[in-house]
């Protein structure tokens, strides 16, 4: 089994304190340069460049790249805490994608270049082939921010097994698309593309490993977005007056918000538990599979229920472009689709559980 922390990273347990420092750095940058109101008013997207520059100067996009691969060498746990914060701010620059790309490249000790990166494939069904001449062919759909990326980290299937490659985005055909939140979600076609670098993937590392890691990243972001949806919804209900009282005083509204809190709590728990599992695992084993798939399934379900409640509490104002709610709600819903939607993972998890047999289900659940 390949270690998720292949490039000699710190493991999860020992970093409680520094985890906070990395996450606090990220939070500080997000509060200063990614305030939801400010971004929402900025029609031209002028906020993007200063935000990315600050993140890059702090070394955050290459958090998961070890120092000997030109990164900042943060632990998996530290990086995960950055992504929780990114979810809370519904960050719409390719931070998570560049971090994942750096992590993927590091699995085969390929050094990460500076600048924006993304990953391909991001769907379990897409396959990129490594041709006999070393070039890459195939199509990856729904690749986040491919249009903005300078490089793409690719997992390719060759005759001799899996390979990890670094590719210049300019060499690929990129058809732009948008996800629900109007962030880039593009189709990338590789037509005999020569990679900048390509190396065999470590033993045991397969496309499922990449999908599970991506699923946990998106789960953390969804959970973070739900935290903010709960926050803005509670605040709004304490301000908005209807029928001569604050709407937070209506029991129907209180119970809706209590349910939103429950969904948020479930998402936070599932995502942080899965992140903690990967950060401390020695490979993509059964435990990681259960935790990561459960996180994606449960966070996606929470996104659906939670976004509906947050919008219901806000009424018409939450449906406007002017209000910030859509920044969180649409992203939480969009993130469900990346690295395998919840129904895909539910089928995969269900098949594994069935294959183990009825009496092995409880031991599996109890093992976590």
């Amino acid at each position, binding site marked *: 089994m390949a270690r998720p922390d292949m490039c000699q990273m710190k493991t999860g347990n020992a970093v409680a304190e520094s985890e906070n420092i990395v996450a606090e750095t990220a939070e500080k940058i997000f509060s200063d340069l990614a305030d939801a109101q400010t971004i929402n008013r900025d029609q031209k997207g002028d906020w993007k460049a200063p935000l990315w520059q600050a993140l890059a100067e702090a070394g955050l996009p290459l958090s998961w790249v070890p120092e000997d691969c030109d990164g900042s060498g943060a632990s998996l746990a530290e990086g995960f805490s950055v992504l929780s914060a990114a979810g809370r701010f519904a960050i719409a620059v390719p931070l998570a994608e560049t971090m994942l790309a750096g992590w993927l490249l590091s699995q085969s000790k390929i050094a990460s270049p500076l600048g924006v990166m993304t990953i391909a494939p991001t769907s379990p069904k897409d396959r990129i082939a490594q041709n006999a001449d070393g070039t890459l062919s195939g199509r990856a759909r729904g690749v986040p921010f491919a249009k903005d990326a300078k490089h793409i980290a690719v997992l390719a299937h060759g005759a001799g097994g899996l390979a990890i490659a670094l590719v210049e985005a300019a060499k690929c055909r990129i058809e732009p698309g948008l996800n629900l939140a109007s962030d880039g979600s593009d189709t990338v076609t590789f037509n005999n593309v020569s990679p900048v670098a390509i190396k065999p993937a470590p033993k045991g590392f397969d496309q499922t490993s990449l999908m599970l890691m991506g699923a946990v990243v998106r789960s953390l972001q969804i959970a973070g977005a739900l935290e903010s949806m709960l926050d803005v919804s509670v605040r709004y209900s304490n301000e908005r007056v209807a029928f001569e009282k604050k709407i937070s005083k209506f029991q129907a509204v209180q119970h809706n918000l209590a349910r939103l809190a429950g969904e948020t*709590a479930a998402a936070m*728990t599932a995502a942080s538990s899965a992140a903690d599992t990967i950060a401390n695992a020695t490979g993509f084993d059964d435990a990681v599979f259960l935790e990561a798939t459960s*996180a994606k*399934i449960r966070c996606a379900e929470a996104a659906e229920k939670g976004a509906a409640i947050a919008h219901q509490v806000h009424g018409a104002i939450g449906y406007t472009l002017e209000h910030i709610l859509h920044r969180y709600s649409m992203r939480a819903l969009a993130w469900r689709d990346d690295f395998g939607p919840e129904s895909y993972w539910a089928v995969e*998890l269900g098949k594994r559980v069935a294959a183990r*047999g009825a009496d092995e289900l409880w031991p599996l659940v*109890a093992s976590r």
Partner: protein
Amino acid sequence: MTAALRFDPIRLPPECEKLRKEVRSFLADEIAAGTFDPHSPQRGDNDVPGFSRRVGERGWIGMTWPKKYGGHERSFLERYVVTEEMRVANAPTRRFFVADRQSGPVLLKYAPEHIKMDILPRICRGEVCFSIGMSEPNSGSDLFAAKTKATKTDGGWLINGTKIWTSSAQVANYMLAIFRTSPPTRENRRHGLTQFLVDMKTPGIKVNPIRQLTGKSEFNEVVFQDAFVADDHMLGEIDGAWKQATSELAYERSGPERFLETYYVLTELVRALGEEPDNRGAEGIGRLVAQLHTMRRMSVSVAGMLHAGKEPVVEASIVKDIGTIWEQQLPQRVRDLAAFVEPDASNHEILDTVLPYAMKVAPKLTIQGGTTEVLRGIIARGLGLR
């Protein structure tokens, strides 16, 4: 953030896994000896001879209590493992579970020393059963509307009134109850109730079984007519039971029993769908397992926070809200997913016998021990909405 929800990714420590093996092997022996049938959740639980005593002998009742009182000074997380293994095996724990979960801890905190020395070791040995006297005919969720009166008399109190929906009262040795000792005040309608320990053999107590829609009579009406309770059986502050009641709730509301009550139908669904289910069956199983895993992680997280001395009342209410709704919907979901099982196959025989019972149990799950509505009120208060 407005809501300071916290669910740390707490893992059960290694000593728990050793304990888990011991519990599983104990339960396997009991099943082999015919003490109980794990596939028969519908049987009556109250009179399984000797089981409670044998659990007590293993040191699995009062696990967290001081040794002085017969306890074992083990961790709250170790107790968690015992509880969940017993629940999943459908073990007959009814006789000691209430005392272990909530009555014992209340006595530990509020009872005078000689009562603790008398009763707690007997709980730990599995010899005594407790019931909880909260609801009354006209006050269920509205706990503080309770009217059953305790009137001061020489050396104690005279109890008059009726408690209702009291589980296990027909076999219980004791009841922990709240009675009215003063009228509520204008400023605080929760004022005026006091907690008492009642010996169920006291003259003037009559237990009338109530038949439930399952056909069983697990809960009762308990009528008090000048039943005498001695002064030293009053627990904690007079008129101040409301303060005592709320801090215990996190223990009562977040345990594995709050989402595993109908777990057996999920096991049987997996058995019925076989090793290679179609996509519909697989997706259904996958979602249910993901939901179950998430709830258990939330519940373990709360257990870990309790272990660390915190009082996660809001988080515990969230676990019970989500957990009880899940275990309530589970039989319906299983019915749905099992609809296309081959009728002549033999691997759904157990499911066929347990599913109707789970359906009948389902409606009570979001009512007992704090209704969904009450829980959401507590969560809303935690969010700063009231």
